[in-house]
């Protein structure tokens, strides 16, 4: 049972008040997801707002086959993919060295066991480790371990079979293990 059903129904009927309530419920989770997916990209707040704008535009077409949260996260994932593609094209155009996709340098930085103090530094270290993963692995493991979605919900949000989700999460965690070793010891 989707706890948001009443609000979603009202918002689909045009109620801004109901939609604002949904924003309050999910703004933290959406922002958290975007930041984890983009390694704290400077555009992450703007992207998070864009998620809600798209949700508002499309909420009349929302079908309750999935939960509102799963649907919202699906929008966020698609938006991040588009953003990443745009960034990659810009980097290619200006020949800028990619930040967060240079695996070697990020591996080194993420495994350095210095200066990891306090929640902010810990989050930053985790996000940098996540940034070393291929996008499809990052999406799956973030939805599972950072956002706490069930495997079936992840399959719905990503539009892939359950077995693919299991495999991606398994491989993502294996890749992250040496990078997060220093954090685990703390």
């Amino acid at each position, binding site marked *: 049972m989707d706890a948001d059903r009443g609000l979603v129904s009202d918002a689909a009927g045009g109620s801004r008040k109901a939609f604002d309530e949904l924003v309050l419920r999910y703004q933290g989770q959406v922002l*958290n997801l975007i930041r984890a997916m983009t390694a704290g990209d400077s555009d992450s*707040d703007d992207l998070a*707002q864009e998620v809600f704008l798209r949700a508002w535009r499309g909420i009349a077409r929302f079908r309750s086959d999935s939960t509102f949260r799963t649907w919202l996260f699906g929008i966020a994932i698609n938006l991040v993919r588009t953003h990443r593609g745009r960034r990659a094209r810009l980097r290619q155009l200006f020949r800028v060295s990619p930040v967060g996709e240079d695996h070697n340098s990020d591996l080194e930085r993420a495994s350095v066991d210095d200066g990891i103090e306090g929640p902010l530094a810990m989050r930053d270290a985790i996000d940098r480790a996540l940034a070393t993963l291929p996008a499809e692995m990052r999406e799956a493991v973030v939805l599972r371990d950072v956002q706490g979605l069930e495997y079936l919900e992840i399959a719905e949000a990503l539009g892939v079979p359950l077995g693919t989700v299991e495999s991606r999460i398994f491989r993502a965690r294996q890749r992250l293990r040496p990078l997060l070793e220093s954090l685990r010891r703390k």
Partner: protein
Amino acid sequence: MTCPVAEPLVARFADDPASLSAPDRAHLEAHIGQCGACRILIDEQRQVAQVLQGRPPVTVPPGFAASLAARLDAEQGWVGLGNWRRWTVTLAPVAAALVFVAWMGGAARTPVTSIPDDTFDTWTISNTAGEPAALFLQSSSGDALLEAVLTGAAAPAGDRDAR
């Protein structure tokens, strides 16, 4: 069950063994009972998941909701432009006013079919045979004069049947 077959199930088993189907769970438990490598994998999966679950959540920056509300307000305006029902209701009085103005303007511009004789004066100059050679018109109003010519109220010289 072999390690490659077991591996895709390891992540879910590490999170919650009960989430696997009964046959999958039974096969995997039988496998890890005799495979030390897979037991290590399960531990590693749990360790990584634990670190990720401990990632401090992002705090929503002040002004985020207000800024989003402003964008949603603007969005509502634009969405409204595509809503024909809203257009119909909003613009109905404007359309009625335009129809009224058009009707009033049309009435004011209805052509005058007969010009009262006192709006302009005429006199003619005749030739030696006594036939009209030229017609002169004079009026205090240029409009009345023009309308008299255009509507044929003042017949040209020589047109005996016009007036």
